[in-house]
């Protein structure tokens, strides 16, 4: 048996390789990136709003303090700064000389050089009333007052930093959450799918190992795996059918070719022993050639039936008119029937379109007419009237070949459709017992049926073939039965 390379993979390896897992994982990555982007945007805009607010309040305080300085000089400014510094939740204020000496304000220690920088920036600071605690971060702005003084106004931004922390933590947790949940989800889905695929694989491997009756389990959910399993099961059924058919055919062939082969051998043997003159030998040789031609015919007929039953003639089918085919073959045999002293009556309805093989229908008709001529004779051996008809019955073409011979007893009718079956009364006449089998196989190929009925007296063979409707069906009354 062929070893499957996938069979050697570890179960975890198989899990990671499943389509379900790969898909889930891809989705996980995409969603994580999306969450990242959303949170990032929220954090960025929240910070921006806060900063803008700080900047504008610093701006307006500087403007108002600068106004106070311009109108009332340093004293008024210092007063105003001292007053504002004491208010609860006050901003940060500092007034210094150009050398950095503190004049007034609530800011204590500052990193060196801060008052020499202008514009907005962030810096560490300590309030005058909490000199020993650790420095905080503030957003400040330094303003050059006329007369070599500097004014620093700022806002503590610890609040903003705390918000940042909250957002960062949220970031972390949500990524972790998505990751864990996503991984679990992928694993769960992949395992579910994998389990069913593994089931299927096990079953198919059993079937390959010889358990030809095994079938895949259908979960009943109607999903794509169920549909696949159903199709595979149908395929297995069909393969099983074909295999049984082929086995039967080869068994039959082996069994039934033995008789004519033995006959052939015996004839040659007998000629060898008894023939004296060259003429006798020649005649014996001719007889053996004739016998082998018969063998070849049997073989061809058997192969044809086997192929028809295997269904691989189906691709060669085309649309044709059954009326024409029936009429042509009937005409072919009419002369023969008349020559034998009988007659052939033909009544064919025009226009019976069929999807199938004109060639095979012709051959089937030829076999039926051949039989009717051979076995339809009366007891004293005289040929009788044979009738051939074709008509439309509902959605089927009903083609009938009827004779006036002894017919086939009802108990034997299904039996004679089998290969090589010949009635006792037919044994004395030439033939192989394949004609009806072939006709029945042709009927099945056309998705039709072959029926045998009593013609009282005689045999009526009925071929029912589905019509191919090209236009609206004619209003033909369908028999209730």
């Amino acid at each position, binding site marked *: 048996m062929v070893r499957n390379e996938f069979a050697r993979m570890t179960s975890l390896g198989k899990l990671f390789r499943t389509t379900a897992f790969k898909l889930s994982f891809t989705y996980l990555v995409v969603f994580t990136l999306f969450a990242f982007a959303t949170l990032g945007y929220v954090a960025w805009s929240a910070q921006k709003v806060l900063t803008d607010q700080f900047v504008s309040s610093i701006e307006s305080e500087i403007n108002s303090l600068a106004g106070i300085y311009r109108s009332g000089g340093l004293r008024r400014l210092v007063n105003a700064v001292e007053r504002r510094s004491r208010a609860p939740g006050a901003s940060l204020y500092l007034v210094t000389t150009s050398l950095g000496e503190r004049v007034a304000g609530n800011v204590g220690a500052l990193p060196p050089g801060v008052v020499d920088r202008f514009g907005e920036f962030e810096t560490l600071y300590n309030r005058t009333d909490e000199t020993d605690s650790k420095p905080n971060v503030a957003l400040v702005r330094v303003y050059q007052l006329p007369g070599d003084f500097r004014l620093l106004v700022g806002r503590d931004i610890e609040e903003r930093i705390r918000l940042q922390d909250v957002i960062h933590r949220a970031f972390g947790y949500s990524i972790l959450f998505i990751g864990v949940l996503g991984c679990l989800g992928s694993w769960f889905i992949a395992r579910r799918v994998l389990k069913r695929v593994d089931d299927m694989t096990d079953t198919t491997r059993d079937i390959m190992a010889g358990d030809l009756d095994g079938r895949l389990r259908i979960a009943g959910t109607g999903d794509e795996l169920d549909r696949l399993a159903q199709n595979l099961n149908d395929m297995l059924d069909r393969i099983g059918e074909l295999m049984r058919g082929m086995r039967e055919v080869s068994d039959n062939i082996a069994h039934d070719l033995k008789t004519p082969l033995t006959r052939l051998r015996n004839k040659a043997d007998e000629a060898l022993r008894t023939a004296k003159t060259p003429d006798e030998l020649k005649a014996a040789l001719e007889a053996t050639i004739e016998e082998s*031609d018969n063998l*070849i*015919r049997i*073989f*061809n007929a058997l*192969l*044809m039936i086997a*192929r028809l039953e295997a269904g*691989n*003639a189906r*691709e*060669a089918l085309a649309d044709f008119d059954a009326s024409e085919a029936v009429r*042509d*073959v009937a*005409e*072919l*045999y009419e*002369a*023969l029937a008349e*020559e034998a002293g009988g007659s052939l009556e033909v009544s064919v309805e025009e226009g019976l379109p069929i999807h199938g*093989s004109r*060639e*095979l229908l*012709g*051959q089937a008709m*030829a076999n039926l007419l*051949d039989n009717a*001529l051979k076995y339809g004779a009366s007891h004293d051996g005289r040929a009788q009237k044979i009738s051939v008809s074709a008509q439309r019955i509902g959605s089927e073409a009903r083609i009938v070949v009827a004779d006036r011979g002894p017919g086939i007893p009802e108990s034997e009718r299904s039996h004679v459709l089998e290969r090589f079956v010949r009635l006792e009364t037919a044994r004395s006449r030439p033939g192989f017992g394949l004609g009806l089998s072939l006709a029945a196989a042709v009927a099945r190929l056309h998705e039709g049926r072959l029926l045998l009925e009593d013609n009282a007296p005689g045999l009526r063979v009925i071929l029912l073939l589905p019509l191919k409707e090209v236009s609206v069906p004619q209003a033909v009354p369908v028999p209730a039965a």
Partner: protein
Amino acid sequence: MRILIIEDDKEAASYLVKAFRESGHVADHAADGLDGYAMAESGDYDVLIVDRMLPKLDGLSLIRSLREQKVETPVLILSALGQVDDRVKGLRAGGDDYLPKPYAFSELLARIEVLARRRASAPSAEPTLYRIADLELDRLSHRVTRSGHEIVLQPREFRLLEYLMKNANQVVTRTMLLEHVWDYHFDPQTNVIDVHVSRLRSKIDKGFDKPLIHTIRGAGYMVRVGAMDGEE
């Protein structure tokens, strides 16, 4: 007539070569598709017999390649497959006739001779009038006369005679008649064809000294003037 047999079964091929030589023809053999192609392309053969399944280059591809190279030698395809659509596939590939295995040599010979003759006669349009001795068949007016007397034929009898006269002086087998007159390709197991020929014969030959439709024993029929060996 020069015949090239492209067939990988050595025994079958040597049987054919021998049988064709006994029938007075020149026969060569190629054992695989490539050799066969080279010989068919360069050699001047009247007809090719090509097996469908060949090593190196399969029969249908071989025929297709020859046709592409404008080698128009008539080809008869031999096939062991014998499936329903095989004939169609073979003829579509550029084959001129098709014979499923197993076959009788007389059948093969008759078909080969008809193919080769078709090539020898000018590829111009078919004549509208066939004439053998005093028998005339006019394909346009659908009239048949013998010694000036009109003979009335059924449409099918007319086609039968037309095909026989088209291949006058050549053996035409029962299978060939079923193929060309009735357009069916199965093996006519009973004597259906014989009955039609004998009816035609009674209309054509009755009352005349020299029969024109002859039965060739073990092979088929022939339209010709005068009797010949092997005739019944």
